[in-house]
């Protein structure tokens, strides 16, 4: 859409590289990349963690960590070369004035001890001769623009009083205080929930058009770029491997990495597929020089030349090129085929399986008392309100919801680690609280989100995996070790790492180890708590595949907690949607995802960003954002955000009802579908 404006380039980067010296060697974060951004357009930089995309962004205004060294042929911004600008000039003329920047972590990116107002205003007063009041006017105006209700009063608030989404909005407003020509957004939505993410991206798009800004959007999420960027550049190991117009790149990827990456995204090729394509291995160490193509070691098509010679840059057309030897030309389909074959090996769609309930959660409620602040009083926080759920043998039940909706409390309760105030959890017909911990442990095991915190850094992988056996005194040491090795084989861990420590493993391997630990006593139910959200797309694909395979081999039952709808799409047989401690909708995957009953579910589905270039970012059409659980709204907890809410919703909470075998809690459930469509 930016295209109809003047397409002269506003930013032109030539052969930029960033080196970070570490105590042992130097890490080449960015290896001489070149980029061009046209005025009024959005350039999406995509890449997995460690691909150097953020470094690139920071390098532009030289905001790199003190140790890092930047070298560049030229960074010409509006004709002036930033490489020659002194720190002084950058600070006084460019930063925050002509180039604004938004960071990933809204939680930590605002100074906690100063009020929003001060932080907004100083951005302006620092650079321009403007009065406090003018700055304040501007600040209020922008807060309005970024969609914060009642902006005037916000000025007095402090960051910790705002939700993540609100903070990110403030960040945006702050970046726009001086009407910059260029806005750099570094993973602006990664830390946010789905609905918020959609809102923010939508907002950015609008603002960009309104102010005629150019934008660099850095993200790992192909879905996001596919909607939000005009051009994209795919980065791998500090290099740009492919670039061009978004649609072209995504529909006809030419670099094997791009292809692989797309294969990894669940739902990229429809839901039918149970097995994802995945890029084997991990990003190579970025220290030292890489001979040949950095991707060679992971490339399915790599030939010897790839390992020896630096691949050539092949331009297909103006601004559309990729870097590859293309040993034996293959169309993307082939790789897709291999993936399909793989898919076909797996047994027929498991969504058909139906077992009898193995785990039932019945009307569980749970409330915590929390003190806020040094002088604060203890206030109740209702984490779960009368939650009921059944988990059938052999199925995958996806539990979807935004952060703070009570997912983790629910899982903890199910594992018997959290005592509910009322209601009961029954596992194999026995009340969980009556189960002795040992027995319970044999039946149900968790897999956690963050493989960096779920493994004890002081224990070797071997110790970690054998731990359950040790605790339960199952078998002799030898037997335990043998068993551990079997499991490691099963989850695809090289037995070599038996004696190494978690720090020495990659994220993927850690997660495999975690899975191994969970499965070693082959439990019946496995609680997967966001098992992939901390991982890169390619690794996520590996893990998802693994989980599915394991389920078939050890016929496991998964409760799969996630916020990533494409993953749900990919994994789940049934879906339960949670909002503010309640299950608002629960039913078969397709039922729920294609024809959601609850307005919230509906909004969720709308805000899911599948890879579909050309389509714009949808507006989930949700008012405000996720309320603070400390003060739940009366009546239907969703009513403040619900487009359909009326008197009834505000006053009395709806009970669960079964509408074409989907459980829904909404007064408008029957009609909502049609209303929301229109």
């Amino acid at each position: 859409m930016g295209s109809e404006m003047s397409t002269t380039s506003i930013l032109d980067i030539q052969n930029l590289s960033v080196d970070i010296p570490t105590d042992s060697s130097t890490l080449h974060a960015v290896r001489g990349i070149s980029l061009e951004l046209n005025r009024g357009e959005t350039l999406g930089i995509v890449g997995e963690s460690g691909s150097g995309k953020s470094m690139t962004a920071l390098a532009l205004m030289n905001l790199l960590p003190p140790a890092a060294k930047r070298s560049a042929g030229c960074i010409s911004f509006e004709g002036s070369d930033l490489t020659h600008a002194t720190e002084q000039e950058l600070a006084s003329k460019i930063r925050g004035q002509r180039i604004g920047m938004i960071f990933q972590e809204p939680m930590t990116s605002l100074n906690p001890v100063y009020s929003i107002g001060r932080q907004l205003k100083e951005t302006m007063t620092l650079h321009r001769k403007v009065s406090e009041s003018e700055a304040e006017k501007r600040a209020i105006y922008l807060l309005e623009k970024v969609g914060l209700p009642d902006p005037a009063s916000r000025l007095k608030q402090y960051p910790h009083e705002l939700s993540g989404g609100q903070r990110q909005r403030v960040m945006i407003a702050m970046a726009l205080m001086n009407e910059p020509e260029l806005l750099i957004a570094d993973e602006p939505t990664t830390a946010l929930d789905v609905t918020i993410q959609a809102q923010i991206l939508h907002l950015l798009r609008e603002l960009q058009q309104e102010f005629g800004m150019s934008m660099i959007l850095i993200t790992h999420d192909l879905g996001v770029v596919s909607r939000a960027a005009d051009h994209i550049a795919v980065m791998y190991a500090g290099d740009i491997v492919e670039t061009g117009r978004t649609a072209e790149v995504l529909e006809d990827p030419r670099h094997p990495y791009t292809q692989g990456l797309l294969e990894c995204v669940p739902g990229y090729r429809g839901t039918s597929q149970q097995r994802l394509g995945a890029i084997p291995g991990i990003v190579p160490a970025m220290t030292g020089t890489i001979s040949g193509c950095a991707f060679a070691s992971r490339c399915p098509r790599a030939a010897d030349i790839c390992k020896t010679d630096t691949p050539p840059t092949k331009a297909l057309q103006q601004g559309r090129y990729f870097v590859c030897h293309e040993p034996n030309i293959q169309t993307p389909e082939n790789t897709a085929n291999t993936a399909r074959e793989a898919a076909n090996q797996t047994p027929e769609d498991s969504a058909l399986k139906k077992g009898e309930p193995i785990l039932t959660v019945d009307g569980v409620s749970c409330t915590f008392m929390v003190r806020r602040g040094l002088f604060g009083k203890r206030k109740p926080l209702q984490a779960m309100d009368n939650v009921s759920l059944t988990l059938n043998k052999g199925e995958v039940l996806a539990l979807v919801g935004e952060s703070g909706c009570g997912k983790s409390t629910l899982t903890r309760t199910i594992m018997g680690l959290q005592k509910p105030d009322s209601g009961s959890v029954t596992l194999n017909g026995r009340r969980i609280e009556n189960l002795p911990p040992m027995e319970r442990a044999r039946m149900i095991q968790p897999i956690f989100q963050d493989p960096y915190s779920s493994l004890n850094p002081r224990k070797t992988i071997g110790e970690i995996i054998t731990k359950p056996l040790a605790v339960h005194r199952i078998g002799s040491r030898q037997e335990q070790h043998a068993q551990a090795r079997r499991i490691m084989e099963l989850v695809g861990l090289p037995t070599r790492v038996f004696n190494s420590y978690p720090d020495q493993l990659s994220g993927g391997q850690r997660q495999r180890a975690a899975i191994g630990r969970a499965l070693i006593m082959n439990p019946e139910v496995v609680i997967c708590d966001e098992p992939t959200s901390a991982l890169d797309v390619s690794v996520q694909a590996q893990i998802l595949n693994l989980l599915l395979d394991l389920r078939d081999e050890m016929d496991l039952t998964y409760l799969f907690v996630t916020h990533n709808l494409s993953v749900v799409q990919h994994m789940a047989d049934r879906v339960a949607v949670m909002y503010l401690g309640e299950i608002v909708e629960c039913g078969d995957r397709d039922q729920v995802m294609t024809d959601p009953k609850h307005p919230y579910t509906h909004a969720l589905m709308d805000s899911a960003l599948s890879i579909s270039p050309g389509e714009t970012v949808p507006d989930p059409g949700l008012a405000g954002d996720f309320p603070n659980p400390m003060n739940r709204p009366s009546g239907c907890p969703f009513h403040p955000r619900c487009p359909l809410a009326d008197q009834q919703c505000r006053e009395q909470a709806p009970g669960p009802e079964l509408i074409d075998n989907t459980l829904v809690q909404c007064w408008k459930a029957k009609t909502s579908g049609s209303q929301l469509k229109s």
Partner: protein
Amino acid sequence: MMTTDQTMNKSGLTATDATQEENNLGLSPTMAALKRARSHYGLKIGLGILLVMAIFALFAPWLAPHDPYMQNLPLRMLPPVWVEGGSWEYLLGTDHLGRDYLSRIIYGARISMTIGIGAATIGMIIGVTLGLIAGYYGGWLDQAVNFLVTCQLAVPSLLLIMALVFVIGQSITVVIFVIGATHWVFYLVVTRSATLRLRELDFVAAAQAMGCSKFQIAVKEVLPNLVNQIMVIFTLEVAVAILNEATLSFLGLGIPSPIPSWGLMIAEGKQAMFFQPWLVILPGISLFILVIAINLLGDGVRDVTVTNRRN
């Protein structure tokens, strides 16, 4: 190996993972620490000095030229050899009872180290235990511990120690125990906060899910993660304890005479400090060197072991 990559099945993945890891499997934490240690000067210097002093302390009976208790009144207050009137027989001169000063200083190292290590160990046992309890179990236990801490902090510790020693009576063991019993707060605070942090980590939840008891988790899962920090505190507390002992002895409430303690020697020399300054200066310097060595070691250990999670 690339051929296996063509097919996208599990084993294939594993194979490549393996081969991938081959070239960048990092060092184990201990190895990494040792590697860093090799290039850390402070640590090496500190360790060096400490070793020398430890050797003197251990083999004092063989290394000391005289019996540190051997009194020889006619030869009292001899100056060191480099001062006129000094003799080669008594390198550092003699004290007010004609005892060989060098020998006493050598034996002094023994006392200081014993006390330092002893006291720090006791403090560690108290502090870490309480810290774990407070941090992991929380609740009223935490309150109780907190109360103890306030008591401990609110009363000037030196006064407290003096009062205790004064009343219980002076002896090496008393000094060790009293100093130990009054220097556990640092351990406690660190252990507690670290425990609070660790408690929230998933591996603890995982252990719970395995059916481990609270105690098992606290000791087997949490404690190992504190070892580094505790080690650092330990070294620093050893230094503190040594200084405390010296101060106590200096004030006449520490090691009983005639045991050679540096602090005591300074106190004894103080009377004549304008005229036989070495009586005060020599033990002071030994004390300084020992403590600085320990601190260097402590800082070194911290730099080397406690890896910063950032970048």
